[in-house]
């Protein structure tokens, strides 16, 4: 790898606790630690993938970084400057720099606006100085949509085209960071490859940093350089994609990799089938959060929370066994 560029975003100890309320007067009765002490860096031109099952907190991480959710604890630095999440000014700076691309673009497009108007809206909100229509045309060209599509309505487009529109709108404020939350999960295989190619091209041309959230491991392998695996709000393993995919050290990562179906018939399956399902984040297990499903748990795992260990080369694992 070339000389590491300065990170555009540094996240350390990011934590989000959603309060649980009960009763007539909404008494707080505890909290859900949806995201617990998550740290990573995003570099220009690089993709960090967050991998995990539903409820592991990966979307909450993205929502916090997009300024849609206020972290309970932890620090986020944008281009070296620490952000204050209660300052309106800092928040709007963050929202300019980091934009989200959602799973279901149809749900995020106003059906009564033409897609051109939808893409123009962020320009109006931000007070874009130049010719807005010209900029919309540029954005549509950037995502390979013809000029004639600008005046159409969302229902006239296919899923893949809508996702392109979602990406064009995210690009409108000229961000440094795209937070992609399962951008291809709702798409068919042949369309998925088009959107993945587009995201890669945009990154190569414009040098975006991507936070790419997905549970589809082949897609993650294809698009990312760095991978972080989350389980119940915590990062259990992270590092360069080769380290995480080819020499996984955490039993959860191994199980995820083994469970991911591969289009190779007759392959001898090394199936590490996990028992049960992800426990409720309202009441996470003590010690290592994974020990209730872990095929190789030790007595210590149910008592002591494992500390992150550096395996070298940026490969970090939180497991007593490693």
């Amino acid at each position, binding site marked *: 790898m070339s000389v590491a560029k300065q990170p555009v975003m540094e996240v350390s100890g990011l934590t989000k606790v959603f309060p649980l309320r009960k009763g007539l007067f909404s008494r707080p009765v505890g909290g859900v630690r949806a995201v617990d002490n998550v740290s990573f860096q995003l570099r220009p031109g690089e993709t960090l993938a967050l991998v995990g099952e539903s409820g592991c907190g990966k979307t909450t991480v993205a929502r916090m970084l997009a300024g849609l959710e206020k972290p309970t604890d932890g620090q986020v630095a944008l281009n070296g400057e620490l952000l204050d999440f209660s300052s309106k000014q800092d928040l709007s700076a963050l929202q300019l720099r980091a934009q989200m691309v959602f799973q279901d673009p149809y749900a995020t497009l106003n059906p009564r606006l033409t897609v051109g108007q939808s893409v123009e809206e962020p320009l109006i909100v931000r007070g874009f100085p130049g010719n807005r229509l010209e900029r919309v045309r540029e954005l549509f060209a950037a995502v390979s949509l013809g000029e004639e599509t600008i005046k159409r309505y969302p229902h006239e487009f296919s899923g893949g085209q809508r996702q392109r529109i979602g990406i064009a709108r995210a690009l409108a404020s000229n961000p440094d960071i795209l937070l992609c939350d399962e951008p291809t999960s709702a798409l068919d295989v*042949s369309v998925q490859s088009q959107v993945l*190619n587009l995201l890669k091209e945009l990154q190569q041309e414009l040098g975006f940093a991507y936070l790419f959230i997905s549970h589809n491991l082949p897609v993650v392998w294809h698009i990312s350089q760095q991978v972080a695996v989350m389980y119940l709000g915590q990062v259990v393993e992270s590092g360069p994609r080769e380290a995480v995919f080819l020499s996984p050290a955490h039993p959860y990562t191994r199980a995820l990799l083994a469970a991911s179906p591969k*289009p190779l018939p007759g392959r001898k399956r090394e199936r590490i089938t996990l028992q049960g*399902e992800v426990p409720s984040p309202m009441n996470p297990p003590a010690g290592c959060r994974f020990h209730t499903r872990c095929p190789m748990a030790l007595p210590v795992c149910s008592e002591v929370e494992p500390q992150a260990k550096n395996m070298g080369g940026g490969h970090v694992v939180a497991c007593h066994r490693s």
Partner: protein
Amino acid sequence: MQDLLKVEGLQIAFGTSPVVRQVSFGLKPGETLGIVGESGSGKSVTALSIMGLLSHPGRITAGSITFRGQDLLTLPEDKRRGLRGSSMAMIFQEPMTCLNPVYTVGQQIGEVLTLHRGMDKRKALANAAEYLERVGIPDPAKRLRNFPHELSGGMRQRVMIAMALAGQPELLIADEPTTALDVTVQAQILDLLSDLQKDTGMAQLLITHDLGLVAEYAQRAIVMYAGQVVETGTVQELFEHPAHPYTQGLLQSLPLWGEAQDRLYSIPGTVPRNLNMEGCAFAARCPHVEAACHQSQHMLPVTATQSARCWRASSGKAKEVAQACQ
């Protein structure tokens, strides 16, 4: 061995527009046949028509569906209802849409047992617990009293499988059974289905858009495009030597981990909207299109078990095409 299910020349139309055209395949007892295709390719509609659940405006305009030698399309509705839920059962992507929210899990599995197997209510409830245990639900006696909303997604899927099994089906149609589930739970459910299949010898029709699942769990598969079967064969043949350009394109557009791919192949264009066409439905997107493609295409044998709806398939050109693609 004789086919348990045989679909021949099936045509389905919504109003006047055809959505499924000339679909034919057979399924033997104990076998898993995968149906792969993208959204709108007609795979679910085909499944619904086998179950007799096709609703307005969909109707079967031609073809036959034979189950255990019986023509289902001429069978009176009450006889058909007797088959549905007992001899043939279907599980769906979203269990919450087919579980009744106001009845307990036990009542719903029990209903199958009283209706199709003539048990009285008490016996049905005891039996229901057995089925819950078989699908790997811990503490089944307690779970019988749960309502669907009290269960997690994976548990609901298991309950739906238990309901399907309660009728002792010979044919199980699984329509995207794990699309709504996490990967680790998906592996549990599909392993469960193939274990149950080994125990009971039922045949399975696995409908999915995930090529990986077909490769792992099916023995044979059919690939559908724009309402037609474009290729069929054993999974080995389909994944190692695909003969139809659409199958080839699909496989090439898959990202594979462990390999360095800078760009993924993507099939140009989109699925045609109007299926009332002469000639190959894939012609407009095919990288090898020639004049012959605009005449109507038939399924041509490639090997004894593989065939493709492409005139090149059997002429030895398929290999050339496959090589050109790589």
